């Protein structure tokens, strides 16, 4: 597996999560920061690569954030520079997917009723992404049973 600094990994995962919450595609995100869709997909995958700090202002701007929002909290432990595995944020992972759905709820996405297809569209989950779709579907069921979301005529609402 590719290795990366802890800080770079944090920024990749944090920005990817935010991008998904806001419903920005990799293509649109790349366009705003002046990069290609492939560049963003590459950085956000287990392949080699990280964002350069000169792009931090553009990335923060694209995500409607300040630069500091990209960074780890002040109480984070110090890094000695030892590289870590590039384990990227993914909707295939239920805990990551939950952070995205809860983040969507927090920004008001579920103030209006949303169908499963609306949610898939928001997350750019095409029909061939069955594994991620399955994770999201099961997660929504869990959030409904935990009273975090409501289900009304097949539509989700906060």
């Amino acid at each position, binding site marked *: 597996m590719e290795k990366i*600094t*802890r*800080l*770079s990994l944090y920024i990749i995962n944090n920005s990817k999560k935010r991008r998904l919450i806001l419903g920005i595609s990799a293509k649109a995100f790349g366009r705003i*920061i*002046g990069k290609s869709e492939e560049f963003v997909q590459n950085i956000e995958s287990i392949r080699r690569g*990280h*964002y*350069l*700090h*000169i792009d*931090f*202002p*553009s990335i923060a*701007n694209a995500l409607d954030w*300040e*630069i*500091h929002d990209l*960074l*780890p909290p*002040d*109480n*984070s432990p*110090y*890094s*000695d*520079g*030892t*590289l870590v595995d590039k384990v990227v944020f993914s909707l295939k992972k239920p805990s990551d997917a939950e952070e995205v759905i809860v983040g969507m709820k927090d920004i008001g996405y579920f103030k209006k009723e949303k169908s499963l297809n609306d949610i898939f569209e928001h997350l750019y989950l095409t029909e061939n992404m069955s594994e991620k779709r399955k994770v999201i579907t099961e997660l929504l069921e869990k959030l409904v049973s935990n009273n975090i979301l409501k289900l009304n005529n097949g539509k989700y609402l906060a």
Partner: protein
Amino acid sequence: MEKKEDNQIISTTEHLSRQKVSRIDFEILVNFYEICKKKKISEREVSFLMGKVNKYFSEILNPFFKEHVKTEYLDILPAIASTCIRKIIPNDISPKETIDIRGTHTRETDKYSEVDYYKFTVTYKDGTTRNYRWKIEITKGSRSKVNPELLEILKKLISRHYFHKPKFALNIYIILKSRFKNTFSPLELQIALSKLTNNSCDPEFALQEGVNNMRITYSKILNETEKFLEHCQDHRIWISRYIPINTSEGQFFIWYEDNDENDKLLTSIDGKVLLSSSIEELLTLLKSNKGVFKAPVNLEAWLSGVEELPPTISVTYSPKEVIAGFEADSVSVETLTNFVNFYNLIGDLGCQDERFAELLDLREAGELRNVWDFYCDNQAKRHKELSLDRAKFLVDFRELVARFESFALE
């Protein structure tokens, strides 16, 4: 006085400028540098902790030179300056914002030092300006005195195998800081490490420099035996020797960490501990496994490394020596350690297979457990006196050994 007269100062000044410099690059450098100056961390010390040569950071600081702190190194700046990343990376920069830098660079050199003066003005995109004055001094050929206390601490770390794997200067500095607060400066650490990497250093404590991910590392120069033991450590497989209580002929066996993270003795499918009368015989047995035992996952990789290194035992278990040690007037630390090693070995065997579970009950017998607890308390710095019924201890211990041997040797 004579020195002063001989010491000719050569001074050169250049007027320089740079346009369209990335503002975030510049601000990161300024923020970090100002924190370091406040905390009295020199440019040389920053370079050292980054794992670079002495002048590395001074050269980056040259505002007229296009070099900057690379993204890969942002990760370590908080640890170097004992601050958080948000104090280093600015928050209020626009995308692709640039600045212009204009000013002078004066270099004064003499026999003893090289001083760079940077006087420059930064012009921001809205037309506002800010002036900077930096003085960066490099002392030439100064003699460095080693801090003896720090050197001893490093030697202790070396003997405890800390340097068996390469370490960055920052790794070592963070460890020292966590244990001794701010007792030792990065410069003192650099001087102590250069003493240990010097050719004249005692081989027992000799370190070597290497490079990992473009940063300098420090590691022990391992002899062949140490290399083999490190190979064992990497693969979590070790050769051990057991000396039965009634003979002096050792029996060799494999001790390993299994996938379930439990330590185990290598046993045959039918539950016997695999023992050999020599290391060579043991290795032959391991290489020619014909369904005799279930091979540990790393065995093949471990065996391939064994061909290049002289195989060595990591631990010898000798109950006879433990008994002799407990019969002596005072029980030595070595005896206690030998006992605990054996006690743990019994625990590993007892836990790995129900057929050996009886050993666990015997292990808990009054005085045996008492001595083990005493050892653990002392390891945890809870110093207590060892109060022990030695006669009872020896009876319990002999019984445990006899039962172990009945399982392992018969």
